[in-house]
Structures are given as C-alpha cells and as structure tokens.
C-alpha cells in the first residue's frame, strides 16, 4: 500500500502521520500532484527520500524513474509552499502547508561529506531529519558534533533512528539486506549470547534511547520497529517519553 493511502488511514484513526515520498517510482509531475493532494487532505508532514533501488524489492525487473533526487524534491516542495509556484512555473492560489523532512545516514561514506550534504538538504528545505538506525553510538556522536559545529542542529530538528532487534535472524537480515544499515558485530554477538532475545532487544533499544537523550542537538527519536510494531508502546513507556506532552 502507498504511503499516501496509509497516511490517510492514520489521519482517520486520529494519529498524525509522516508521509514518505520517494523519487524511485514517481517523477516530478506525480510528486507535485501528490503533495497538493496530501496537503488538501490534511497530511502535514512529508519525508522526502530518494528511495531504495528496486533491486532490493520483490520486483527487480521494474524500470525505475529517479527523475529527481531527494534534495531536488525538497527544493521543489519548498518552492511550492513558500513561493506558491509549481516547478514548471505556474502559480498556485493556495500553497500546500507542509512540514518538510529528509533522511540522513551518518554511517554511510564518504564520512566527511555526510554533514556537508545534510547542510545541502537543509538549505534545500528540510526542517526535520530522520537518521538511519543508530547502533554505533561513537560514530553517531562524532557525526552530531560535526552537525553542531555547523549549527545545523539549530536549523533542523534531528531525530535519531532506533531499531529494536526482535531476533538474531532479524538482526542478520538487516545487517546484510537492508540498504545503508550498519550493525556492528558487537551488537550481533550480544544478541547471540542471550536466551530471551526479545527482552534483550527492548533493553538495548531503551539503552540506546537513553544514550541518545544525552547527546546535545538531538531533538527526538524515531523508532523503526520493523515487523515488530506492537513493541513500540512498551519502549516509549520504558524511556519515560510517555504520556505525550500537549504542545
């Protein structure tokens, strides 16, 4: 199911979704028309991604699009919102009032270019950033210090990604099959050494969130409980982030 449809279902359930828009399957025309539709239907948050290559999906023979990349997508959406014009140049009576976000992988190469690229995303229009799952905390801290150095943490809300590991198999799968996911061997060893993997997974995830809380410049956490969504409430309670502050 598309992120657009599932975001609408969340709205109907009273939750506030973050709609994901990838550039793999849709060219700039489709992305702009979807943005207008989403805004019209009350979806406020949009996460701009280049999108995983179709080789990682179940239809490897499909032709990809990649007309634009995530940074150009941000640029187009910000122009639609702030200058009320479609990228082709036509005027919009009403601007789509959306909160734009992007992703960033602090563990990908070339390391020293990563923060500069985050800067590009923010200048292009990103207001919140969801990072790739954090396992290697030292490298994440080094990345965050570079981010603070450039003052980017004051220009965009950075949410560190966390992933609770349900089983040894899930961990290995993510390490090898999920693009961009770097899981240090120490984490794998820790799960291997324990009988009840589930509770250890939750414990590690909570530990990670506590560590992230102490890092200056991180404004929040996004929990990616892939195929284990039901565990999220338990994790949130255990980290004292519940109940939700009314803003």
């Amino acid at each position, binding site marked *: 199911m598309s992120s657009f449809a599932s975001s609408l279902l969340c709205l109907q359930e009273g939750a506030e979704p973050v709609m994901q828009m990838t550039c793999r399957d849709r060219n700039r025309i489709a992305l702009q028309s979807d943005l207008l539709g989403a805004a019209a239907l009350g979806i406020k948050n949009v996460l701009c991604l*280049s999108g995983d*290559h179709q080789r990682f999906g179940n239809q490897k023979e499909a032709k990809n699009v*990649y*007309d634009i990349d995530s940074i*150009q997508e941000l640029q187009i959406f910000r122009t639609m919102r702030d200058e009320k014009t479609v*990228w082709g140049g036509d005027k919009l009576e009403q601007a789509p009032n959306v909160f734009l976000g992007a992703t960033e992988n602090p563990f990908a*190469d070339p390391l020293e270019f990563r923060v500069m690229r985050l*800067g590009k995303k923010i200048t292009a229009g990103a207001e919140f950033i969801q990072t790739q799952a954090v396992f290697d905390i030292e490298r994440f801290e080094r990345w965050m210090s570079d981010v603070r150095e450039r003052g980017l943490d004051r220009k965009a809300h950075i949410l560190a990604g966390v992933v609770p590991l349900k089983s040894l198999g899930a961990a290995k799968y993510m390490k090898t099959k999920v*693009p*961009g996911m770097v899981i240090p061997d120490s984490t794998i060893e820790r799960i291997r050494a324990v009988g009840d993997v589930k509770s250890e997974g939750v414990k590690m995830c909570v530990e990670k969130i506590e560590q992230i809380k102490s890092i200056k410049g991180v404004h929040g956490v996004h929990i990616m409980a892939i195929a284990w969504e039901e565990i999220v409430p338990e994790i949130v309670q255990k980290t004292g982030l519940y109940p939700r502050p009314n803003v």
Partner: protein
Amino acid sequence: MIIAEQKPLTEICRIVENDHKILVAGCKSCVAICLAGGEKEVGILAESLRLYSDLNNKEWEISEVVVERQCEKEWVREIGPSIEGKDSVVSIACGVGAQVVQELYPDARIVSGLNTSNMGAPDEPGIFLEKCGGCGDCVLHLTGGICPIARCAKSMLNGPCGGSQNGKCEVNPDTPCAWDQIYNSLKRLGRLNLIEKVIPPKNWIPSSSGGPRKIVRAEAVLTPEEKKTKEGVD
C-alpha cells in the same frame, strides 16, 4: 565505444529453430574490440551453430561474413549478395548495425545475436565498464569528470545516497559508488564547492526520454537539388 555481449547460444538456436539458410554477420569495429562480434566470434558462433545443427538434425546451412562497420550503408551493401536467399541473418554487430542491415534489406529476417549494453570502455583485458548514458546534456564539468547519470544506479545529481558503503554502491557491491569518486575527484581538483550547492532538477528533453534523437550537421546535408544531381549521377 559500444559494448555488447553475445546472447546465450541456446537462445540464438531457439530463435533460428525452423530456418535453413542462416548467415552470421559480424562487424569489425566496436563489437570486435569487446570480443562479441568480430571475425573470430563469427567463426565460433557459426561453428557452434553447425555443431548444434549436426547434433539435432537441423540441416542448417551456416555461412559467415564480416562487415567493416555494420552501421554504414555502403559497407552493408557489400554483403548484399550473401544476404540473398537467407532465411535469417544473425547479426552480431550492435543493435545499430542490425537495424541498418534491416533498413537496406527489408525482406531479410534480421535476428540480433547480441545484447547491446552501453557506451563504455575496456577497463582491463576482458572487462568493459559503462561510462556514458547518452543523456544529451553533459554535466561532467560539475562532477569532476565522472558521470552520475550513467554510473550511479539512481542517476542522482546530489549524491551520494545513504547506501554508499566504503566506496561501493549498495546496488552492486563490486561497482564503485560514482558519487564517492566524484567527491574524491572534486576534492583532488579543489572544486568541492561545485557539489556544496544544490544542483537543480535536470532537463531530460535531450535524453532518450525526450524521444529518439536526430543530430544534424547542416554543413554536410545535401540540398534537394544536390540530391537530384547526385542520385542522377550514381
């Protein structure tokens, strides 16, 4: 140069299954260099087809020919006589050559024996790498001489994506990540500023998505009168 690879022999045999007189037409330029369709490959393919025919009582009659360049009409006309009366012509030139032969000999059944792949260059003996995607609007001056359209799996203009791991592309790990190379090349050239700024969305009209392209060198085009006198003379 154009890089191509022979179709699997079993596939070629299936395509010409019910034919009798088969011509294998090779080409001496690009496909000879990438060991796909030169005179040697013509010999090997013809010999393999004959062996297959003997084994399976196909009674195929395989003949061989090599063209200087199969994308040049004058050269292709020279093999006209050997195309005569053939049930199918297996062209192991690139896709361009096969289609030029079809244009000149509309009644002949042209079969492409190759899968033409890309515009690339020999990397080391026997290994050929894609270099150019033919997008019609070159950006090499912005990317330190490395083409992101052809050599990045997502053709990104503001890469690298999150899947670039120790210099390799996540899509196929033995391919270097183009943007990792672009970053290092620009760093070496002291022009990192080029990718600090956002590169705006690309105009894809000059690329194949804008429809088949036609390049015109006006100074070489014959006017209708010139054509008449020339055709008259020929």
